């Protein structure tokens, strides 16, 4: 087994365990932190695919921003308000066994369906045959993306700044209006 494959299995394992903890951890705040770790694992997979910039995006946006926003959201909401509902009525309890089975079967069904779709896409795309790094990928380093960004795509890049500015102003205006209410 070569080093890249070994690294892939380690990183994928960390990511999967973290994702599993996200749905099983009793503390919702810890679940949010586990999600951050899962994202770090995905960044590692991007790195193994030699997509440095995507790995940077993954860490900055997903680990840095999305996880922070979600943790903020958890801290701003009253977690104590989230409670388990009252005892279900008799006719629901009668079908509880069936319901329990369904509750375990349904996520499995969804996961199996998703895995099947991904596998189907993988076999259709012919990525399985890609052993050597394709030539176009050589320009996909951070430097390559930067060079393209500041020559060919200079105008869209500046427009991105305007879009970000609009998002910032919009967030402020909306939040201030909430405040006045």
């Amino acid at each position, binding site marked *: 087994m070569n080093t890249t494959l070994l690294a892939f299995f380690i990183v994928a394992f960390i990511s999967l365990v973290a994702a599993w903890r996200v749905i099983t951890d009793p503390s919702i705040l810890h679940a949010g932190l586990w999600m951050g770790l899962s994202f770090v694992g995905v960044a590692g997979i991007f*790195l193994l695919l*030699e997509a440095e910039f995507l790995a940077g995006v993954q860490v900055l946006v997903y680990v840095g921003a999305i996880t*922070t926003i979600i943790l903020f959201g958890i801290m*701003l909401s009253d977690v104590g308000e989230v409670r388990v509902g009252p005892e279900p009525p008799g006719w629901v309890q009668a079908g509880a066994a069936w319901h329990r089975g369904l509750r375990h079967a349904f996520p499995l069904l969804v996961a199996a369906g998703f895995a099947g779709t991904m596998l189907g896409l993988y076999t259709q795309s012919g990525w399985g045959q890609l052993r050597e790094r394709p030539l176009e990928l050589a320009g996909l380093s*951070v*430097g390559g993306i*930067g060079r393209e960004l500041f020559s060919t795509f200079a105008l869209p890049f*500046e427009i991105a700044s305007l879009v970000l500015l609009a998002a*910032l102003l919009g967030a402020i205006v909306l939040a*201030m209006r909430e405040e006045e209410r």
Partner: protein
Amino acid sequence: MLAAYTDVVTFLLVAVLFIAASLFLGGLLRPHHPYPEKLSPYECGKAPIGSGQVRFKVRYYIFALVFLVFDVEALFLYAWAVILRQAGWPALWEGIAFVALLFVGLIYAWRKKVLKWV
């Protein structure tokens, strides 16, 4: 390219091992003597009031939103910083224009007293 990340992996391993070893050795050496006062949260020496998990004011969410925008800005600046030396002056001005536009937003947030910690 991936070989360059050997340093990162080494760094990660050393960091994890250092923390794990410190905690393990500390656990061996320290006395184990817990009592309720010691286990209570530390609030500047006063007896803590209420639960540690309070709901924060919604107002603070705006800090997260402003941070989000500048986080995406940092992402673009990452690609910018990598090529700046070879791309030369045009790229420098493009980057400065990019930052300047977002600086307007920062000034707006500042003037609207969004950044005030209340």
